[in-house]
């Protein structure tokens, strides 16, 4: 499960017109289902249905799905042969013989068993040492030899590749004869049934090429149906039977007898967990007429229910629930459908950016249906229906109804089921939150245990397998932050959801620091602070930062000292250097004799200011201050100085900087001031030229800032940004008019394209 994210931006994806008639599939958003879900299907639905739990982004739910047609039944097959061979051959050897050994290796193994070979390579399983009766081993190898030959057409190794696929292997007619002879002669039920399966599968592939070319069919020369019907009752209804049945369904499907095909697929679907995925995948009613015929083919209510469940999971949960409920209210096939209906209903709409449940609209018919069944109370899991009805009502903002259903559910919850109990707690808590209008001391007291529990889940101090709690967590954080804000308690609001604006006001920070350092915190305060993400050190650093930009260096230093390690990280470049063209990477890579940290940087500023106050090295010192204050703007080489958990790390454009700090971190006014003072103290024309150009950079940056601001106001895109139209300002003119004879001027002309074009 991913970390919670407050806002999920949901994006559509488009695909091209494709073959099958369906030209565009809208799978919904691209997100982890846990993020928006408050309802855990695992709490209510039998595990065998887990691949069909609702998921908005993958074909089957879960990570333990085997959707490989070639290996799906391998485990089962090994088990069956293990039983047949009296467990005298280990599973590994059996699997090797059955699935991976070549016909030659199978033959070697058999000949070694019969004593026709003296030595058997170690990698080929040896059945000689098993003390199995010869008749059984003979039967096994005779069958296996034939079965291996069938693999050529039956195993479709769909490896996507750049080589043109070899033509489909058609079954060899002789093989059918051999299978038939073996079948007729076999007296062993186990072997005989498997040969029957091989013959049916053979027949399916035998008629396949003709059907692929012309699905209008013609007579069935393969004899598949006859073969199936003739011996169907002679064998047990085991997995081999149902696999044969699957080919019968395939036969009908290829011949466009959809009524039969889909009915038979539903029987396979119902048989076992392993058969559910391929059967559901094959289930395709075409028109209402064949669907109705499939229903008529069902021999009893249970078979009808299975058909409706399939329709439900593929297309229409509520219609299927309605039908199944009318057939048998106690059916456990309702569970999967209800879980899907809920998980679909709570999914945010495709066009929304969600940060709450506000955008969700519950289909009125679905709600009425679930409420009705919950109220009737005659299903096999009444608490499931009551929780579902309660939750749909919460989503629909009908909290009174929600409460009623939850109360009913509470009385019906199964004992000692942690997951169901946690699901109830979670739903009950989100209802509490939704109904909470004013937070007073009583409410705070009531919330303590739930807030701690959610924080425990988040921090993995409490784990309840499969429980989906991210939505509840997000709703708690955003909901409580919002309510406190409404009540005017910005500090508590900020504890749940930090906003940048909060930190623009030092009084806020001080109040928060008081709370963090308070000695006797209430249980609620303790619980609440588990949702707050910053440390005292980070707050001190931020306070110091603000003071630096106010040029209050002396007050900033002690706070930086309190910020401790946060203020002791090396800055990537020397913040007292300058260059004609800003190049952060060049500065980062340049040799730095002295590395500065935030603390040593600010103390150096203090020392320089002291020298200036004493009248020493006025040109150099003011130039250094100009550089220092330039470099701690967005355009300088020391962005790292102002980037923190409050101001953010990732701004690449001035417009990415939080609006509260944007002017502070982009304005070069302080730097410009010191460059101009330095110019006044300069001794040479070269020095003056340099100060003038540096001031020009500051001036230009402020013009950029203004352009960016205007750009944002005009809602234009970044690529429409036109630097060339930015006015040039006064210092370019001064540089050109007063300092054109200096060497520095010539250097600028060489390095700075803007100045060059200005000069033309």
């Amino acid at each position: 499960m991913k970390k919670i994210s407050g806002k999920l931006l949901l994006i559509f994806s488009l695909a091209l017109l494709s073959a099958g008639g369906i030209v565009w599939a809208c799978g919904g958003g691209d997100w982890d289902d846990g993020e928006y879900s408050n309802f855990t299907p695992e709490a209510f639905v039998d595990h065998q249905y887990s691949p069909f739990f609702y998921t908005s982004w993958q074909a089957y739910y879960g990570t333990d799905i085997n959707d490989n047609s070639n290996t799906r039944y391998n485990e089962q097959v090994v088990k069956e042969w293990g039983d047949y061979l009296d467990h005298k051959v280990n599973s590994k050897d059996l699997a090797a013989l059955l699935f991976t050994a070549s016909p030659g290796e199978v033959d070697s193994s058999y000949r070694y068993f019969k004593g026709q070979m003296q030595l058997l390579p170690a990698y080929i399983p040896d059945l000689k040492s098993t003390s199995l009766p010869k008749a059984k081993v003979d039967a096994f190898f005779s069958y296996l030899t034939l079965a291996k030959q069938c693999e050529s057409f039956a195993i479709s190794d769909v490896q996507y590749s750049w080589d043109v696929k070899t033509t489909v292997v058609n079954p060899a007619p002789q093989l059918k004869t051999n299978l038939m002879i073996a079948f007729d002669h076999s007296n062993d039920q186990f072997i005989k049934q498997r040969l029957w399966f091989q013959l049916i599968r053979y027949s399916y592939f035998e008629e396949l090429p003709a059907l692929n070319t012309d699905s209008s069919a013609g007579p069935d020369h393969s004899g598949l149906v006859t073969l199936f019907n003739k011996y169907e009752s002679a064998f047990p209804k085991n997995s081999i039977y149902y696999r044969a049945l699957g080919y019968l369904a395939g036969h009908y499907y290829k011949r466009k007898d959809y009524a039969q095909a889909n009915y038979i697929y539903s029987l396979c679907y119902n048989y076992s967990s392993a058969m559910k995925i391929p059967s559901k995948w094959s289930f395709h009613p075409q028109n209402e007429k064949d669907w109705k015929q499939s229903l008529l083919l069902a021999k009893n209510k249970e078979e009808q229910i299975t058909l409706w469940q399939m329709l439900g999971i593929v297309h229409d949960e509520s219609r299927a629930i309605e039908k199944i409920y009318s057939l048998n209210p106690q059916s456990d096939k309702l569970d999967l459908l209800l879980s899907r209906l809920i998980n679909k209903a709570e999914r945010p709409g495709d066009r929304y950016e969600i940060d709450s449940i506000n955008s969700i609209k519950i289909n009125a018919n679905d709600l009425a249906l679930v409420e009705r069944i919950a109220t009737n109370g005659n299903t096999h899991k009444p608490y499931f229906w009551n929780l579902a009805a309660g939750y749909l009502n919460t989503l629909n903002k009908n909290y009174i109804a929600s409460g009623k259903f939850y109360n009913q559910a509470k009385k019906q919850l199964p004992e000692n089921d942690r997951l169901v109990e946690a699901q109830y707690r979670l739903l009950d808590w989100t209802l509490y939150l939704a109904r909470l209008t004013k937070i007073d001391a009583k409410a705070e007291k009531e919330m303590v245990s739930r807030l701690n529990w959610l924080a425990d889940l988040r921090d993995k101090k409490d784990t309840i397998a499969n429980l989906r709690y991210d939505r509840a967590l997000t709703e708690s954080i955003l909901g409580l932050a919002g309510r406190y804000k409404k009540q005017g308690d910005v500090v508590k609001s900020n504890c749940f959801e930090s906003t940048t604006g909060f930190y623009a006001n030092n009084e806020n920070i001080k109040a928060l620091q008081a709370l963090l350092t308070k000695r006797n915190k209430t249980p609620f305060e303790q619980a609440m602070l588990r949702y707050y993400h910053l440390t005292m050190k980070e707050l001190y650093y931020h306070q110091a930062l603000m003071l630096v930009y106010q040029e209050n260096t002396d007050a900033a230093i002690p706070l930086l000292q309190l910020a401790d390690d946060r203020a002791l990280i090396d800055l990537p470049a020397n913040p007292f250097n300058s260059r004609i063209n800003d190049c952060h990477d060049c500065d980062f890579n340049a040799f730095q004799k002295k590395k500065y940290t935030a603390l040593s940087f600010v103390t150096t500023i203090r020392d320089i200011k002291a020298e200036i106050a004493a009248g020493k090295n006025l040109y150099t010192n003011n130039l250094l201050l100009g550089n220092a204050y330039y470099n701690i703007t967005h355009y300088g080489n020391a962005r790292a100085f102002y980037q923190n958990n409050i101001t953010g790390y990732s701004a690449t454009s001035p417009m990415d900087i939080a609006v509260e700090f944007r002017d502070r971190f982009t304005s070069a006014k302080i730097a410009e001031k010191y460059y101009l003072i330095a110019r006044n103290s300069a001794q040479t024309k070269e020095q003056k030229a340099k100060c003038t150009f540096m001031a020009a950079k500051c001036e230009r940056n402020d013009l950029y800032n203004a352009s960016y601001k205007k750009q944002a106001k005009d809602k234009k895109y970044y690529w429409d940004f036109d630097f060339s139209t930015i006015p040039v300002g006064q210092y370019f003119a001064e540089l050109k008019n007063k300092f054109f004879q200096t060497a520095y001027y010539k250097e600028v002309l060489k390095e700075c394209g803007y100045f060059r074009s200005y000069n033309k």
Partner: protein
Amino acid sequence: MSILSLYLAGCQQKHNAHTAFYYWKTTFRLDQQQKELLNKTSDNRLFLHFFDVTWNEQLHEAIPNGVIDIRTPIQQLKVSPVVYITNQTFQNMKVKDSDSLAFKVNKLLNQLVAAQHINYTLVQIDCDWTVGTREKYFSFLKAFKRFNGKQLQATIRLHQIKYPERTGVPPVDKGLLMFYNMGKISAGLNASNSIYNKEDAAAYTGSLTNYRLPLDVALPAFSWAIQIRGAEVVQLYGKIGLADLAAAQNFEPINKGIGKIAENVFIYKSRKSFYIKGIYIKKDDLFKLETMDAGSINQAAAQLTQKLSPLENRNIIYYELSSISTSSLYEKDIRKITAHF
């Protein structure tokens, strides 16, 4: 009047445009009607979709998909092979792999072509590339041209026409302007036809004149129905047409029983839950049918020719042949539309 007719007739002959068709299904099988249309209007010119190239998440490589299965003899047709490559392929692969991808695409294509004894002179690559994939896609195209040697064409979508300085102009011999899919496919009940509508098209045609590639043109000869449920798009179907929606026992037209809400846009609401043509429709689902008829394709062609730079032997490709019977487009219509160019 007669002078005007003569003038138009003169125009029609001027640039000698050729009609052609796309065929996009994975199984190539033509019925008699399609064969005749192809033969009589386009002199058997066919842009045949051979396969897709998609990104396989499991294998972490680009793989071919939906390789064409040819069931109708094809030797007498003038085939230009088309390969569609998803933009996702280029998003995921590295620039250095463009060369080997180009090699593989060319090899597979030539194997498929050789198996059918097809001679071709032009090959088309279709990819909705973006700013982020431009470098990789373009280096793929260069490599492909090197391996393949035939005339190379790349599809150009409208947004690529509008912002060539950002998306770039592909390094190919010729472009193919896809003059459709101009609007967003939306669940909105008042939106105009997303396949083609004059207003949305006008936002792009202005940039056509200066485009730096000779352009063939693909025109929409298809319709589709957008299935809408609870104000969200569920699915898009090419096989649901007006004939299906007009069945009163299944659907009712909205908008006071008219159904039509805009030019070539019709909305129907389902009366019940049922299956039709393998599609499941839920009660109250809406179907927004967006159609293209001879009139609207003609309008698109007229709008386009006002801005398109002149070109000899331009191909006008109709999308697409396998679904054309539903769009009631006749030979004479096609001749008339192509004659605009």
